Structure formats: structure tokens, C-alpha cells
């Protein structure tokens, strides 16, 4: 499990990571500053041939990032909803109860990516991400260190992808400890590979 490079963590994007691909296809509301010839079909709300100046479109993050480049700006972008002041206030009040996954499965990563688009509120978003995680940390830690076996999906449904990964890490070390404690790791077991071996054993042939 590669947590060291979380989906789009900061500016180090991870080209082949499926998480990164999923994250970068989230839609960003953008407004065109230039008109674009013959691409009118991208905007389902009109039948016009061209995209006109000032028309609004939801572009995927990967496209918005390059079109909103500060040096050759074709579009201006807005913050997506879950990062706006209203949601920031909710997170500030009590981040622990918010269902981040519902807001965006890659909440932290998408937030970070949008920071590079130079929103005026950027610094506020960045701060709110840090505070939200520090607030939620205790709950993730307690759950991952104490949930034993069974179905965990109800526990982690409020966690975003990175938090789910942290949860899984904590679970792994808890399980390893429990296996050791009951002495299960001391007994030698047949390897999965050997027990599933389809070929006939020599003694069976003789």
C-alpha cells in the first residue's frame, strides 16, 4: 500500500496511480475568458457551434489545471462547493462528524490541487484542511486501533480515501499484534501456494 504518495499529494502528482486519475477527473466549475471555435458541443446547455466568452462549464481538474495556468489564462475557475466558506465553517465547528467521503472521496487531495489555481481563499482552504485532519485524527486512530474483525464498512464510511488507508494501516498492525498475542504466529502453517497446488503429489502417484 503506497501511502507515501497519496493521491495528488501536494504538487507531486502520480501519473499512473488510479487514485490520482480518479481524483483529477473531479469537475471544477470554470468560466471561459476566450472563445473556442467548434467546441460548442462540450456545453450541453447550448446548441451553438463555438464556446463563447463567459460561458460556464464544469471541466475536469486535469483540464482546468492547464487551462487556468496563470501565464496563459483561458478560463477562470471557482472553488468547488465542499471547500467554500460554508463547508469550512462546518468543518471548523466539528470536523469529526462530517462525512468527508460524501463531500469528495479525495477530499484532502482535491483541496490541495485546487490551491495551485490561486484562489483568493487559498490560504484559508489550506488551513482548514490541516485543522480538519488534526480534528479527525483521534477518531481514526481509536477506530483503527480497536475495531476487531467483522464488517468495518460502517465505521469508515465517513472517511475519505487517505483516511481509509490510514485506518487499514492501523488495522494491520493491530491484527499482527493480536496474532502474536494468542500465539498464532508461532505455529507454522502450510503455505497457501502449496495447499492450493493442483498437481498430484508424488506419494499419491506411487
Amino acid at each position, binding site marked *: 500500500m503506497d*501511502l507515501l504518495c497519496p493521491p495528488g*499529494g501536494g*504538487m507531486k502528482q502520480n501519473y499512473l496511480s488510479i487514485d490520482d486519475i480518479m481524483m483529477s477527473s473531479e469537475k471544477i466549475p470554470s468560466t471561459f475568458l476566450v472563445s473556442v471555435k467548434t467546441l460548442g458541443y462540450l456545453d450541453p446547455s447550448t446548441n451553438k457551434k463555438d464556446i463563447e466568452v463567459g460561458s460556464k462549464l464544469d471541466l475536469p481538474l486535469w483540464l482546468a489545471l492547464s487551462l487556468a495556468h496563470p501565464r496563459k489564462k483561458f478560463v477562470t475557475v471557482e472553488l468547488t462547493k465542499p471547500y467554500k466558506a460554508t463547508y469550512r465553517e462546518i468543518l471548523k465547528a466539528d470536523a469529526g462528524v462530517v462525512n468527508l467521503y460524501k463531500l469528495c472521496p479525495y477530499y484532502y487531495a482535491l483541496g490541495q490541487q485546487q490551491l495551485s489555481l490561486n484562489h483568493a481563499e487559498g490560504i484559508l482552504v489550506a488551513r482548514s484542511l490541516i485543522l480538519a485532519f*488534526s480534528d479527525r485524527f483521534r477518531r481514526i*486512530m481509536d477506530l483503527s486501533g480497536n475495531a476487531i474483525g467483522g464488517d468495518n464498512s460502517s465505521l469508515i464510511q465517513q472517511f475519505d480515501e487517505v483516511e481509509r488507508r490510514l485506518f487499514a*494501516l492501523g488495522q494491520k498492525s493491530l491484527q499482527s499484534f493480536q496474532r*502474536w*498475542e494468542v500465539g498464532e*504466529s508461532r505455529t507454522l502453517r502450510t503455505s497457501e501456494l502449496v495447499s492450493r497446488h493442483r498437481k498430484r503429489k508424488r506419494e499419491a502417484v506411487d
Partner: protein
Amino acid sequence: MEHSEMEFIAEKQKVKIVPNFSMSKIYFISGEVGPFQPGLPTEVPFWLAISLRQRQKCVIHPPDWLTIERLEEIKEAETTTELFTPLPNTHFREMCQLLLTHAKPNIQNADAVRTLVKDIWDIRAAKLRSSSDKFIRVQAGHARIDNLTLMEINIARPFLLASLDHLHTLRTSKQFTKKTRNKEY
């Protein structure tokens, strides 16, 4: 690291045994053990002690801290202070586990001892959890924690490291770095 590997490392610790056979010194790469004389106590590594014990060749003498009185003291100290108290051994949990499985008949009140060990462990685990929460919450850059045993570090490591790593990516986002860069120029 797997916890069974931690146990493997802990088995290098020395423990006192009273053999019931005689044998000359054994020479290992890590040092020599013995000689063994029936009834004469000698110090051997844990793994050897366990192996001899399983063949009924020796009696293991539990370390002097594995008594109810001593553990009660430790537990008392652990509950009263906010910091971690030094444990008698860095492999505290592994040693207790090994001794309680393999040398149970040689430990007085083994069951009470087991409960105490578990109590101490739980108190410390709770402390570790609340202190790492505090550490994250106040956005501290570094923290110093003394007297943790290896097992505790090993349990906390994967989760805590990954969390701090995540927090680090959040903290080093462009917004913050740009601000500091502006200050420099």
C-alpha cells in the same frame, strides 16, 4: 515489523536457569553459555532457556521484577504520573508473554501477574494514544517521549508515521511555501 519478529529479537535477552543436567560450555557466535551443572544457576539466552524448558531440562528463574509486588508498584507509578515510567526491560511485553507461556509453573501467582502486566500495558497504550492526539492537535513540530518499549513503538509506528506524512503534505502546500518565499525577498 511483525510482532513475532519483535519476539525473536527479545529472545536474545539473558535469563537465569537452573539446569538438571551437566554439560560443558557451548560456544556460539554471540558468546559462550554454560557450563551446566545440575542445581547450579547459570545465565542463558531466552531461546535456549525455552528450548531446554520444553525438554524438561531446566527450571527458568523469572526475573525479580516479575512479582506481584513489583508490578503493583509499576502500575501505581504509571497511573499517578502523566509521563511514561521506565519499565524494567525494553522487551517488557514480549518477556512477560514468553515467561507466562513457557515458565508458568515457576512464577508465583501467574494469573494475577498476567492481569497486572495487561493492566500496565493498557494504561500505557491509553497514554500513548492521548499524547499522539495532543501532538497532532497542537500542530507541534517535534515531541519527545521517553521510556517507550520497543513493542509499543512498533504498534504505533505504521499509523502514526503515515498520518504525520499526510499532515506534512498538507502543511507544505503551495500556499504556505509561497507566503514564506515572499517574506524572504
